[in-house]
């Protein structure tokens, strides 16, 4: 049997198809993108080696407002961490506390997570519509007519208006992460807390939250990295506008490459996004781990 399990032909047959596709499409393109980012290239003509000029343009000269896009994605990440995650935590704690209809609520809250972003965003474009949208209609109905406004097309309101559907769609996901973590804790912990007379808030702050730290770390990474690589919501609802008010690194990268044909320069942006995602994953992992120790 030992010999069978060392069969090189079988090994190649089992491993190579997946490994080749994976390397060619996921791993190697990171190197290719890094190489492109050092070129001046319009995608058709000859490419010219450009050194770090693209990055100088990007960060020092800030020609296309790249820092604005980084700031916007930073705001979205902060909103996710300080609004979406606490909300998800409250819902999870409540459900796990033992309420009637626990299963039903969990099912309903999770539903938007699996619906296509394109559908969700098109729906919210309608909800925000000035004339017949749900939001402005509700405002008029309760006598706040002056509050009705084109939410997505004003620089001041556009970014929060993009954020709202994101919370609406993904709060159920983070809720489920926390809920699953809480449910996997041993029942006795909560029983003894109850006997000691601990109330909802005390149980949550002193017992539950510290015990599900590992899952909080995971959800933080998902929320932050998700904001940094956000593309669909912005592309569909505002296309980065008005006046870059909702532009994020991914949409600027997309436009730079496929609308302006600046392949090298746009690749610089994609390298930045990759590094940003790696870096913050590591920071969150390290940061929370050191506090645990």
């Amino acid at each position: 049997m030992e010999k069978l399990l060392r069969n090189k032909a079988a090994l190649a047959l089992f491993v190579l198809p997946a490994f080749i596709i994976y390397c060619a499409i996921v791993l190697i393109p990171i190197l290719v993108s890094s190489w492109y980012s050092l070129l001046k290239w319009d995608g058709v003509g000859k490419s010219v080696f450009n050194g770090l000029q693209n990055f100088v343009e990007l960060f020092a000269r800030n020609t296309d407002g790249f820092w604005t896009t980084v700031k916007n994605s930073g705001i979205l990440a902060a909103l996710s961490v300080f609004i979406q995650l606490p909300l998800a935590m409250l819902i999870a704690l409540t459900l796990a506390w033992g309420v009637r209809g626990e299963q039903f609520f969990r099912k309903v809250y999770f539903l938007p997570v699996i619906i296509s972003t394109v559908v969700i965003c098109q729906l919210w474009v309608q909800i925000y519509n000035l004339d017949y949208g749900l939001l402005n209609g509700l405002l008029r109905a309760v006598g706040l007519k002056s509050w009705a406004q084109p939410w997505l097309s004003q620089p001041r309101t556009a970014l929060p208006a993009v954020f709202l559907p994101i919370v609406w769609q993904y709060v159920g996901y983070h809720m489920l992460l926390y809920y699953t973590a809480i449910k996997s804790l041993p029942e006795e912990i909560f029983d003894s807390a109850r006997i000691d007379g601990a109330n909802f808030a005390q149980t949550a702050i002193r017992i539950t939250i510290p015990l599900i730290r590992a899952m909080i770390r995971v959800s933080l990474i998902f929320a932050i990295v998700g904001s940094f690589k956000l593309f669909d919501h912005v592309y569909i609802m505002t296309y980065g506008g008005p006046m870059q008010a909702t532009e994020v690194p991914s949409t600027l990268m997309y436009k730079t490459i496929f609308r302006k044909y600046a392949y090298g320069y746009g690749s610089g942006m994609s390298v930045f996004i990759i590094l940003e995602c790696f870096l913050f994953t590591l920071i969150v992992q390290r940061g929370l781990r050191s506090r645990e120790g």
Partner: protein
Amino acid sequence: MGASSKSGIGALTPENKRKLLNGVLFAVLCLITVVQIFPFWYLAVFSLKSNDQIYGGNIIGLPTKWIWSNYSKALIDAKIILFFVNSLIVTGVTIVVTVALSAMVSYAIMRLKWRLSKIVLGLFLLGLMIPQHSALLPLFVILRNLHLLNTYLALILPYVAFALSIAVLVLTGFFETIPKELEEAAFIDGCSIYRVFFSIIMPLLAPALATVGILTYLSAYNEMMFAVTYISTERLKTLTVGILGFQGRYTTNWGTIGASLVVAVVPTVIIYLLLSNQVQKGLTAGALKG
């Protein structure tokens, strides 16, 4: 119970406090339910109205006249049927290929004896952190040079590749729960490695393969960035690209857009209604082990 009867009626005994808290929590959960469901209700009634009704101030009510023709217009005129079939083909092939390839490589990593198995596993898991943005342009250039833009393959390849990491994570985790005795007995009986894989491993893996299938369905069926970039031929557009194309073009008929959106979510909602627990388990699989 004993404590509450002693301290009198009406006072906030611990028991009553608990009931009050539960009542408040329940009310809040119901409110959130309304918030989560209401946009879907809005979409459903929206899809059955004419422009006159939509502009006429009847925003959340049932249509005064039910315009079912919005649906026939969406399916035929707006080509939703075509986009739907394209999505099914791309998603279907992606699921089959992903399930097959990830099962094979996971078996090799967990059961075959070779020196690089841990490194290969590590490389696959690294992919959980890699954003799809990194592949967008390099793959575009390759596909263009191979004249593969505007083909199903242009989407299936990246969908499979980016689905492999989570699939390998789920499957290798599941292998740890499968006892090796069955395989060992089969080898002793003279079965070949391929026979063991197909007749013993694959059936045992079934629950995990279902999870992988659901995850792959969601990522492929809902994917937008690759689809928008690699497909521009009307005939080959998937649902996400097709629906995206409505912006600006069907502005004259809002009800048709609504109907298209409803049709697009139907398969996902059906899967969810049938398998909500597996879907939830699948989508938290990465977080639980990661």
